[in-house]
């Protein structure tokens, strides 16, 4: 098979199996190896990407996203404009988060090992909108926050890597943080994930000037009272 999109590396079934297994082990041993987390998600995606695409095709905005294939990176998101937005907007919260954790919109790796260009876009879109899920769910980028977001994404997307990260990440937390996750976070995150709008059907680039609480209400995400 020839390369179907930039960065595409076609691989055989044997390579896919070996890569899936070894990247999963590497990612579980060292969760900061974001390249292995990325490779694991691509090689284990299986039917989850088709499920995600199906949910997008069932929605008018989802269909538009699939058609236009927007990317979230420093050339498509004007950080200067976002800094000028009111504090309560999604865009301002986004740029505050980037500054606080010293990350950029370009931090996400390009998809390489998905053999369908549209499904590769779906996975790329998931990667690039992950930061917005942190904001919508009010979760920090520490381990407990990441695990909480992964539970949400696992239920919504069915991606095996999300399930691995959710379960594996839960076991890696300290006892105290694990109890907080299980007793405080998951009791509202799990029902929210099942009932709220599919996050892949939100055209985030068009909502950057929207009040984040309004967007949460629209998506039926209700944060617990602190």
């Amino acid at each position, binding site marked *: 098979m020839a390369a179907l999109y930039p960065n595409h*590396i076609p*691989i*055989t*079934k*044997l*390579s896919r*199996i*070996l*890569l899936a297994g*070894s*990247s999963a082990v*590497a990612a579980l041993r060292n969760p900061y190896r974001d*390249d*292995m987390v990325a*490779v694991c998600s691509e090689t284990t995606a299986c039917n989850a990407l088709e499920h995600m695409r199906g949910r997008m095709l069932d929605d008018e905005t989802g269909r538009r996203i699939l058609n236009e294939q927007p990317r979230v990176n420093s050339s498509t998101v004007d950080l200067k404009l976002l800094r000028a937005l009111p504090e309560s907007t999604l865009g301002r919260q986004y740029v505050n988060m980037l500054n606080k954790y010293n990350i950029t919109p370009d931090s996400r790796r390009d998809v*390489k090992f998905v053999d369908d260009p549209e499904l590769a876009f779906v996975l790329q879109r998931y990667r690039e909108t992950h930061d917005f899920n942190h904001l919508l769910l009010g979760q920090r980028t520490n381990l407990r926050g990441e695990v909480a977001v992964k539970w949400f994404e696992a239920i919504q997307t069915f991606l095996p890597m999300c399930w691995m990260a959710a379960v594996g990440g839960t076991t890696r937390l300290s006892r105290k943080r694990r109890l907080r996750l299980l007793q405080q976070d998951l009791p509202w995150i799990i029902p929210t994930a099942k009932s709220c709008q599919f996050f892949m059907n939100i055209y985030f680039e068009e909502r950057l000037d929207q009040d984040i609480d309004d967007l949460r209400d629209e998506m039926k995400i209700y944060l617990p009272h602190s």
Partner: protein
Amino acid sequence: MAMGMANNLRFVSRLKALRCFEPLTILKRNAGTQTTNPEITHFGFKNVTVKEKPKKVNEVFDRVAGNYDLMNDVMSAGIHRLWKDRLITVLNPCDKTKLLDCAGGTGDISFRFIKRVKLQHDCPEPNVTVCDINPNMLEVGRRRAETQNLHLKWVCCSADDLCFPDASFNAYTIAFGIRNCTHIDKVLKEAHRVLEPGGRFLCLEFSEVENPYLRNLYNTYSFQVIPVMGEVISGDWKSYQYLAESIRKFPSRSQFSQMMRDAGFQSVSCESLLFGVCSIHSGFKL
């Protein structure tokens, strides 16, 4: 015997049916187009201009330098160490040997040379020069030499345009480097030039596996397992895919032996290692 062959063929066709045993398909599909245009050469299975190739090879070695030794150990399960030991055994150096280790990057051959000469000939300062076109590989070698307290000369230059006078060495080695060179014939001519009369040329390089069943297994391992190792250990699939492809584009044992004779070497011979996975080519300047 016939029953045994029939069983073997059924085994291979079952493996092919699993569709994970695709080495020949990969080779046929991706072997690149042959060209007689002198401005075009191969970079793995891709065709590139002769001007582009050194830059592309340099980029590969910039990327792999940091994990080069670890990857060699992982890919060959440590067997590359035995091949390099064998190269030094064949060289059989003494205290009068002046070695040029070309494309010697991280120092595997030169360190073995020094240790062998010190041990067997009680020579305090064996004469060895390492040259490589890639400064990052040389830097890795320098740091390794410091930790082992070894003293040798490090020179950054290209194997097809060496910066040494004629007849300045009596031994020349190049291990797993010549297949990355754009002009193998020029490398051989330069090697001949810098050797003294009586000097020996030794090249350790990947080769072709003769046995068809072992060859299929080797191809599967090269194209479908090694790049996975590259991706997981170094985050670099493409460099290790290039490794597998560049091995397939290298001249055969007999072709390379003829190229050595064309460059002026005599008493040319070839020793096959591990069923042909690699070979040690030897020639003398008489």
